[in-house]
């Protein structure tokens, strides 16, 4: 077993990892920037070490500083959390080259799954349905035009080397496609030094459904699905497990396909396989695999009873997976809402500040993963996630009632948060019916703006 774990992250996930390590009897080292000296993770860890200035490039993204902190504190493992270096293949390799354990897959697995074309090829060969599109990069305009005509419109043109929405073009017709293709290629060349493109059919009204998997490099299991269709600017705001939209037979097929892909790549660690799902056709399509623990992992923990962060540490330590697939039972319904330091009444403007009074909800089936404490000064340099309110109950309607009750207990004075947004969502008929898709929330926010503005906090 790992003896001393260095946490190369911050915020609520650092707290979550420290808790799992403590339960396993592992000592913890919390790295921190100059702006995070007073953070909750720093207060909770056995040892702490300053790795640089507030700017992330100089601290949490600084591989050399993190490796040197591990050497100095004699840590034998590094947990990357999510974001920052979690899916940086070079970091995973550098940690192993330094003789340490990386809590996550090796660089090669991160590279394969992080490369859209390679991941799609891996999915296809494992028998996982993929969004109709080019099977790989396209450099020849004539070939692109033929492929576009075959898969149908609208079509998304993406940079093979792209990310973060850059280099994406949407074509509604063949004519439009042929004029946008050279533009997209030039933009990709300028932005990424690689003009390679690939194209994909746009699935209009779809849900975002993802499957949690765990593998030990030899054997793998799935822990059922999460639905994260409520998104604002491609950021998830409300997640639940299971999805209320999947018939049981489709659930089995979807989770089975995720498991097949996990096994096909001999995956080691915790991962998530993301899909788009169409209600009408009951078709699902692989989008990508995330090779890290995800923000919304607690909803899966609530419905399966599996402690995912603890399991990924055990797997990294070299233990075989402790579960058979038949051990994983789906029970009840869980919902997580993200409490961000953003003001929903003012177009989600960020709201750093100092936490005055703080009341954390409790009671049955209620969990609040956070890095807040009374008097904590929220630094402006990092993302706005303050905490995740997670509830579990026997059924989805009961979980929503419990969420409303828990939200009413939550009090974070001194800053504006997204709590009113979630209170309003809980009351919405569409949300209560589970009748939504990935483009549902943004128009809803526009039409509900006056209500959000009227909500005092």
């Amino acid at each position, binding site marked *: 077993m790992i003896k001393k774990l260095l946490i190369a992250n911050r915020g609520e996930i650092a707290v979550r990892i420290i808790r799992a390590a403590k339960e396993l009897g592992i000592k913890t080292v919390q790295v921190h920037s100059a702006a995070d000296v007073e953070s909750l993770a720093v207060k909770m860890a056995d040892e702490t070490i300053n790795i640089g200035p507030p*700017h992330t490039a100089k601290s949490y993204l600084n591989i050399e500083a993190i490796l040197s902190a591990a050497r100095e504190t004699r840590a034998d493992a590094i947990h990357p959390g999510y974001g920052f270096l979690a899916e940086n293949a070079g970091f995973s390799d550098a940690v192993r080259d330094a003789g340490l354990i990386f809590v996550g897959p090796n660089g090669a697995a991160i590279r394969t799954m992080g490369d859209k074309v390679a991941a799609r090829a891996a999915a296809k060969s494992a028998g996982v349905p993929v969004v109709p599109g080019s099977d790989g990069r396209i450099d020849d305009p004539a070939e692109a035009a033929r492929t576009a005509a075959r898969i149908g419109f609208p079509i998304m043109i993406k940079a093979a080397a792209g990310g973060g929405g850059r280099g994406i073009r949407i074509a509604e017709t063949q004519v439009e496609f042929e004029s946008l293709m050279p533009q997209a290629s030039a933009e990709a060349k300028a932005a990424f030094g690689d003009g390679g493109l690939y194209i994909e059919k746009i699935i209009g009204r779809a849900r975002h459904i993802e499957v949690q998997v765990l593998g030990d490099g030899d054997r793998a299991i799935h822990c059922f699905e999460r639905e994260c269709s409520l998104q604002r600017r491609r950021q998830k705001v409300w997640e639940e497990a299971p999805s209320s939209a999947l018939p049981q037979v489709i659930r089995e097929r979807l989770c089975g396909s995720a498991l097949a892909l996990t096994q096909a790549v001999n995956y080691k660690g915790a991962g998530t396989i993301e899909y788009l799902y169409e209600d009408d056709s009951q078709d699902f399509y692989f989008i990508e695999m995330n090779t890290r623990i995800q923000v919304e992992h607690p909803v899966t923990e609530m419905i399966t009873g599996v402690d995912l962060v603890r399991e990924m540490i055990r797997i990294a330590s070299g233990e075989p997976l402790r579960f058979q697939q038949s051990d994983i039972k789906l029970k009840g319904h869980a919902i997580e809402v993200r409490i961000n330091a953003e003001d929903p009444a003012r177009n989600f403007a960020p709201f750093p500040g100092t936490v005055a009074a703080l009341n954390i909800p409790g009671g049955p089936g209620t969990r609040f993963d956070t890095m807040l404490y009374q008097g904590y000064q929220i630094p402006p340099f990092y993302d706005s996630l303050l905490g995740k309110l997670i509830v579990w109950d026997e059924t989805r309607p009961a979980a929503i009632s419990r969420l409303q009750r828990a939200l009413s207990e939550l009090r974070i004075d001194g800053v504006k948060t997204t709590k009113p947004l979630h209170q309003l969502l809980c009351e919405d008929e569409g949300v209560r019916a589970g009748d939504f898709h990935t483009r549902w929330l943004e128009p809803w926010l526009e039409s509900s703006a006056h209500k959000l503005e009227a909500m005092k906090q």
Partner: protein
Amino acid sequence: MTKQLLSPLPGTFYRRPAPDKPLYKNEGDTVAVGDVIGLIEVMKSFHDVKVEVSGKIVKFLADNEEPVMAGQALVEIA
């Protein structure tokens, strides 16, 4: 008379629109009301820092990528 332009927000100050782009303004440049001299990143969202009095930039008081507090002086304009 020199005037100081204060940061409207706490966060990270940037003097360029992107890492591979040139500086918005240099010391010695003439600026007009509304000109952008930098960005403040607050919780991953970016806000323009605009000049409130026209004049000539004497000196930058905060460096590129420097953490700043709300109300901290960023630039001196004469």
